[in-house]
């Protein structure tokens, strides 16, 4: 029975398919466009919404203070969310490649904890601010309506907010949370392997 097995000899016998270089560069370019597109969309959608809301303020000149507070709350909600979202950027696409494995895992753990915060506390805050803002903003226009219409309008908006808050949001959070928890557990396990 051999005690001194030459693993290197077997290791190097692995068959290798080297793909064509152009195929790789094509993929690299696709990847770059896709990542950039995702980032632009996330920022653009929220910023455009903020601009439209601000436009309403300047163009229609609301007279009630509640409308202005409402607009401000909506904008604050979106900007806070966006600002936090952008702090995740360096973790996702930054120059993390030159870190050693241990540091890389630490970074991934920080990212995951941040994402967890984003999906729970931050999203809750975002929701509360946005609903409150919308409710206040609508008030000026609703008081001009007849009572049944006013009830109907608020009813529809409240219904929509409730669906989002009590159905879609918990569902999404639950799904993402389960994945994140699983990943964090795996990463911690890897960290333990490095500590032994």
């Amino acid at each position: 029975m051999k005690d001194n097995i030459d693993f290197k000899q077997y290791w190097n016998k692995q068959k290798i398919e080297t793909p064509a270089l152009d195929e790789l560069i094509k993929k690299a370019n696709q990847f770059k466009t896709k990542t950039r597109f995702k980032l632009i969309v996330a920022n653009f959608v929220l910023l455009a919404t903020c601009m439209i809301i601000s436009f309403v303020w300047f163009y229609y000149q609301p007279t009630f203070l509640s409308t202005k507070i409402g607009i401000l709350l909506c904008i604050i909600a979106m900007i806070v969310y966006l600002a936090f979202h952008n702090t995740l950027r360096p973790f996702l696409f930054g120059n993390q490649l030159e870190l050693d494995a241990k540091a890389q895992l630490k970074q991934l753990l920080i990212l995951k904890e941040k994402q967890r915060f984003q999906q729970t506390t931050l999203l809750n805050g975002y929701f509360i601010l946005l609903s409150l803002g919308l409710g206040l903003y609508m008030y000026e226009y609703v008081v001009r309506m007849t009572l049944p219409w006013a009830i109907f309008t608020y009813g529809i908006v409240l219904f929509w907010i409730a669906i989002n808050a009590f159905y879609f949001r918990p569902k999404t959070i639950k799904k993402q949370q389960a994945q994140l928890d699983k990943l964090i557990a795996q990463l911690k396990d890897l960290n333990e392997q490095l500590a032994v």
Partner: protein
Amino acid sequence: MTFEEIHNEYWPKVYRQCMGYMNDPDVAKDIAQETFIKVWQQLPKFREESSIGTWIFRIAVNSCLRQIRKDKKMPKSEFPREIFEETEFNSEPQVQFLYKCISQLPEIERIIISLELEELKQREIAKIVGLSETNVRVRIHRIKEKLTKKFQQYER
């Protein structure tokens, strides 16, 4: 060194490293590709503080570690075993057995032994993984012992 030269020289090394980690030719190819996409993107920023080889292996190791995200969603064990048994890639059974044994080690050990078999200096492996050189030396010794035992049982 141009990207083409890097690609030609390092693709086999990176691919083997990914095979050691995953023991699945398709997944290994995907991770190797991911690694080279990153190399291609970051090459202009490469500062030559370490050797190009160490730098590329670092990216490859990090790509492997990040891989668990996708991989664990569908653990291999959920597939019927035959699927993997059938995808014979190497005719030589010892080669297959070695890669199989390595892929069954804990993740960090897979990385360490793959780099060792790629003939990286222990000092470089230590830098890539983030452990001390002594620790790496001890680990390599233990992993080789494990592999030798498995091979001895296999050859019996």
